[in-house]
C-alpha cells in the first residue's frame, strides 16, 4: 500500500473512532463541531489520495508522512487517556493540516 494513502486512511479511521469517545468525555458542542469538520476534511484527504499516485521519492512527502504518523500516534495516546478535550482538538487540527498538505501533493495519473 502506498504509505501516504495508508497514513491518510489511518488518520480518517482514528478521528472517526474518536467522535463517540469525545462525546462520552463531555466535549462541548463547539468542540464536537470542530472535530466533525476535521473528520470530514480527513475523509476528503483520503478519498482524494485514492486512485492517484504520490511522488513517494519526494523527500517532502516522506517528511510529511513521518510527521503525520508521529502526530497521529501522540493523538491516539491522548484520546485513550482522556486528557483535556481542547488539547486533543488542537492536536487533531494539526494532524489534519499535515494530511491536507500530503493530499495536496497528489498528482493526477
Amino acid at each position, binding site marked *: *500500500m502506498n504509505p501516504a494513502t495508508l497514513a491518510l486512511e489511518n488518520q480518517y479511521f482514528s478521528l472517526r473512532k474518536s467522535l463517540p469517545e469525545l462525546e462520552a468525555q463531555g466535549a462541548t458542542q463547539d468542540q464536537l*463541531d470542530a472535530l*466533525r469538520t476535521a473528520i470530514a476534511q480527513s475523509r476528503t484527504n483520503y478519498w482524494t489520495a485514492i486512485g492517484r499516485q504520490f511522488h513517494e521519492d519526494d523527500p517532502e512527502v516522506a517528511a510529511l508522512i513521518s510527521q503525520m504518523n508521529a502526530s497521529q500516534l501522540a493523538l491516539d495516546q491522548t484520546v485513550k487517556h482522556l486528557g483535556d478535550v481542547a488539547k486533543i482538538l488542537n492536536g487533531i487540527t494539526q494532524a489534519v493540516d499535515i494530511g491536507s498538505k500530503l493530499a495536496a501533493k497528489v498528482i493526477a495519473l
Partner: protein
Amino acid sequence: MTTILRRHFCFVSVLLLFLCVFACKVSEDAAAAARQMTTTAVDLSSHYNSLAQAVTDSIALNELDASISKIPFEAKDRRPLEDTLSEISKRKDAALALAKLAASMSALSSSTVSSEVGTAASALGKELVDMKALPAGSPVPDAVGQAGKFLLQFVQQHKEKEAAQAMNGTLAAFVFLFEKEKPTYDSIFRTYIFLASQIARDLIARRAVDPSPMLTPALKPFDLTPLPADAQLRDTLQALALGRLQTSAEDASKRETDASSAMLSALEEMRSRVHLLATEKPMPIRDNPFSLKIVESWVASAI
C-alpha cells in the same frame, strides 16, 4: 513398385494424420483458452462491480453518518467518491470488453468470423485508452489498441499463434493494472466496512438496534420467535453484539483481500496459459483457473 507406393501412401497418410491431430490439438487449446479467458474476464468484471457497489454504499453510509453523527457530507465531499466510482466503472467496462473479445477467439475454429469481433476489439482498445491509470508515456495503451486490431485480423485469417500473441499483450495490461491497483481496491473495501461497522456501533450504543435476532439459534429448533428486545435485553446483549460486529468486520475485510489476491492469481495464470499458446506449446490445463472459485464466492456474498 507397389510396395514402394504402398509405403509412400502409408507415410503420407501418417503425416496427414499427424498434421490433422496437431491442428486439432492447437484448435482445442485455442478454444479452451478462449473459454477460460472469457470466464476470467467475466469474473474480473464482477469483482469490479462488487467494488463499485462498495463505493456506492460508502456514499450512502456517509449520508447516514451526516444524519446520525452530524459529520458534514456536502457536494464537495461527495465528489472524490464519485470520481473513484467512475474510474472503477471504466475498469468494469474494460473487463466486459475483454470477455467479449476472448469469446471471439472461439471464431478461430469456425469458418466465418462475426462482425462482433471487430466491435469487441475496438471497444476494448477504447476502454483501456480511456483509463487514466496506465503510466503516462507507456506504450501499453497503444499496444493494447494495436493488439485489438491485430487480433481481429488474425482471427479472420485463422492464425491462432498470432492471435494468442496479441491476446497475451492485452492480458499483460490487465495484470499490470490489477497488480498496481490491488492495494487501493483493498483500502476502498476496508474503508467501506470500517464506516458501516462504525455506524452500526454508534446505533448499538444508542440502543437503536433490536438484538433479538441474535436469539434465533436458541429459539429456532423449537419453532419459537423472540419478542422485540426490551431495554434490559438490549443492555444484556450489547457487549456480545459489539464483539460480533468487530469479528464480522475483520472477516469481511479479509475475504475481500483474499478475493483480490485470487483475482490477481487467476489473471497471471491466464496470461501464462495464453503465452503457451502464443509460443505453440501445449496447454495441459483445460479447467478455469482454480482461484476464480474464491473470487466467485466473494462476489456472491459481497453484493
